[in-house]
């Protein structure tokens, strides 16, 4: 039987994601939204708003937050938590940049 392990996976170049924008990574565990901020920081969240499952990758990215396109909840990119009075969390996927490439820490079947 295969065991589950986590490892850093290269999902693409920083420049594949537009600044103040997002791209989707499709993966067995569900869609992941990868965000790039105005100053080139990279974050990744599960692409499901904690409110009613809106695709966060389609929202407007500002500072280190994204506003969900369905009902305007603002989700913090660093923590995945809803900001302000709203409560809920979109799962955070650890992300790092190496040599201009984005790596996500993902579960893999080894």
């Amino acid at each position, binding site marked *: 039987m295969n065991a589950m392990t986590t490892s850093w996976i290269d999902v693409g170049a920083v420049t594949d*994601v537009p600044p103040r924008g997002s791209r989707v990574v*499709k993966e067995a565990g569900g869609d992941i939204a990868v965000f790039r901020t105005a100053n080139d920081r990279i974050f990744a969240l599960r692409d499901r708003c904690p409110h009613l499952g809106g695709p966060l990758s389609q929202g407007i990215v500002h500072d280190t937050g994204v506003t969900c396109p369905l009902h305007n909840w603002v989700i913090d990119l660093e923590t995945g938590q809803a900001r302000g009075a709203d409560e809920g969390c979109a799962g955070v996927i650890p992300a790092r940049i190496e040599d201009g490439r984005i790596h996500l820490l993902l579960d893999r079947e080894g």
Partner: protein
Amino acid sequence: MTQKLVVIGNGMAAGRMLEHLTEQAPDAYSITVFGAEPRVNYNRILLSPVLSGEKTFDEIVTHDDAWYAARGITLVKGGEITAIDRAARTVTARDGGVTPYDRLVVATGSMPFIVPVPGHKLPGVVAYRDLDDVNAMLAAAENGGRAVVIGGGLLGLEAAAGLRMRGMAVTVLHLMPTLMERQLDTAAGYLLQQAMEARGIDVICRANTHSILGEDHVTGVRLDDGTEIAADIVVMAVGIRPNAALAKSAGLAVNRGLLVDDHMRTDDPSIHAVGECVEHRGQCYGLVAPLFEMAKVLAAQLAGDATAAYEGSVTSTKLKVTGVDLFSAGDFAEGEGREEIVLRDAARGVYKRLVIKDDRIVGAVMYGETADGGWFFDLLRKATPIADMRDTLIFGQSFAGGAKLDPMAAVAALPDEAEICGCNGVCKGKITATIADKGLTTLDQVRAHTKASASCGSCTGLVEQLMALTLGDGFTRNAVQPVCACTDLGHDDVRRLIVAKGLKSVPAVMQELEWKTSCGCAKCRPALNYYLVAAWPGDYADDYQSRFVNERVHANIQKDGTYSVVPRMWGGVTNAAELRAIADVVDKFQIPSVKMTGGQRVDLLGVRKEDLPAVWADLNAAGLVSGHAYGKALRTVKTCVGSEWCRFGTQDSTGLGIRLEKIMWGSWTPAKVKLGVSGCPRNCAEATCKDIGVICVDSGYDVHFAGAAGLEIKGTEVLGHADTEDEAVEIILALTQAYREQARYLERIYKWAARVGLDAIRAQIMDDVEQRRLLAARFLFSQQFSQTDPWAERVAGLHAHEFRPMAHFEPREAAE
């Protein structure tokens, strides 16, 4: 019989005098005012904010036409008086008209002084005195280029800062070693020069102008030392002279200015004078506070109070350049028997200096922090002995043995007689009492009832603090609703500043307007992007990351993350080929739902984002383009069958609807725009609940607007009647453009109309035919850049990353 009062000059002094007079003795005179300027009375000291773009001319008008009408005053605009015949008691205007008077008031203000160097008459040399000068400067600034301002005093620096904000390269030439040397000492003058230079304004002191260069227009300025500075415009702001020539030629006693006694009377008992044109006890003034005091005295005199007297004024100065805080009052020269107290805080750029003589403040200069200016000025004017507070005096009034009190406490601590508004001489007690007596709740009301903050506006902060103190929670500062939490500015200010400062990108707006967040939020970014799109057609690169997802991917997002696709059906008309293409697309992409919309077209719902470009490619092939069902843009134009088929149809409503949709599609608007065109008043296209509606009638077209049938229900208002289809189209395009230029983001037409007034809109579109033509032309100009089908662009590959995942890992697939 009522006496005839004639006033020559319609400036600030005359305006204020008339206010007092018509309040105290409304029926005493039949009044005629001659103003050489072709306009109503305005607040001259706010010309600088108009120049810089921080205010519009309308905002600085003090008395509009209705004001004169309500008081029965005849205002002759553009009516320059060329002669006074004292024997016959008449005045003669430039057009030859002769008007008799029983009493005459001369209020001709002053003339800018023009240094008579060679070239001073060249086109492109302007003074800085009235709206015409501002317009001349604005016209020059339109092409960018370079400006030279001669004179580093109050006016010169305000002109320089304004022209700089309008995007010109600006050099200030000043004869003396430091700027504003008559109001500031050298230390403050130096700080001021640094602040101007930090704005990108070049300052050259000790600059003696030799000549102005140019053949048929200014090209530059040469200094005595041979330096040449290129210039497209030269502003002369070296000083003013009382404008007393007319009085002098009438034989009145004139020295530097027209001589008046304490009753504001000249040496002719039936002629009075007021304002900058006069000389009183050897003094001529150049600021409004003394003139307002004179105006009050003269009004009382004319109203019959023979005792009213003016005894001269001590003045203080503030510079109205946003971001530069500067205050000066009294005499701050060094001298025998004078001591000074100085405070410097280099880190904060603060400098304060008090000059003391015989235990009294005789002069004050403050730079960088001026909140205590009014208090020092008060001590100075009242000659209050300061020995008791000498040690802490320089720290200001709120100093209480250590930590600085918060500004509210400082205002609370002010005595009732402390002067808050220097221009109008309004003290604290008057403001708080009026707020309480009259139940005032807004700044505008306080301005109207007390005049405080109504002139140069630099005391607005203090007045607001007083309101907060008096009203507690009942006061909401700043009736302007900010765009969002990222800024304190309201939508209108942001729009105006974008244009005024020539800001052409979202980051530039945020930088220049001091956004409080690093890159805005989902509320302000789409608004700013729209304002930029509307302000700079063809010149602004859309910031698509600032658009809501629907406008980014040109489809409507659905609750499950899929999208809907709505092609345009011009005027609701379709044909077999289009329907067949739609049917094929539905089959090919297995689109789950097809629905007729409320807007006379077909909605394909549940399309996967990845499929959008391919769906569009097939629709495009059949000639179908985006219906912008997702945009703050032109949506649908509903029509009925009209005269082509219907037995009641009066005009071709279908044809007009299609024509309008073809001209207007693709235009971005503050909120969505929907049209309806009905062929007769039976109104089958429901035109009278649309943003813009047309009801065809036998005699032509009734154009309606400002309807609503969504969150609110509201029938339209009539905008006007058009005899021809062309005229109806022009009216609709002009209306749409006015809406595009004036409404706030997300404000539908009916909300905009409710805010600015139906009549104000009718006046622009229906009454002013020239304005209508220009608006329509601007609409058509911007359409050149917006009528590319966004679907076709994306089929061709634009923003391809939007429609593709960045990576796709199937289960069990290797990390590669």
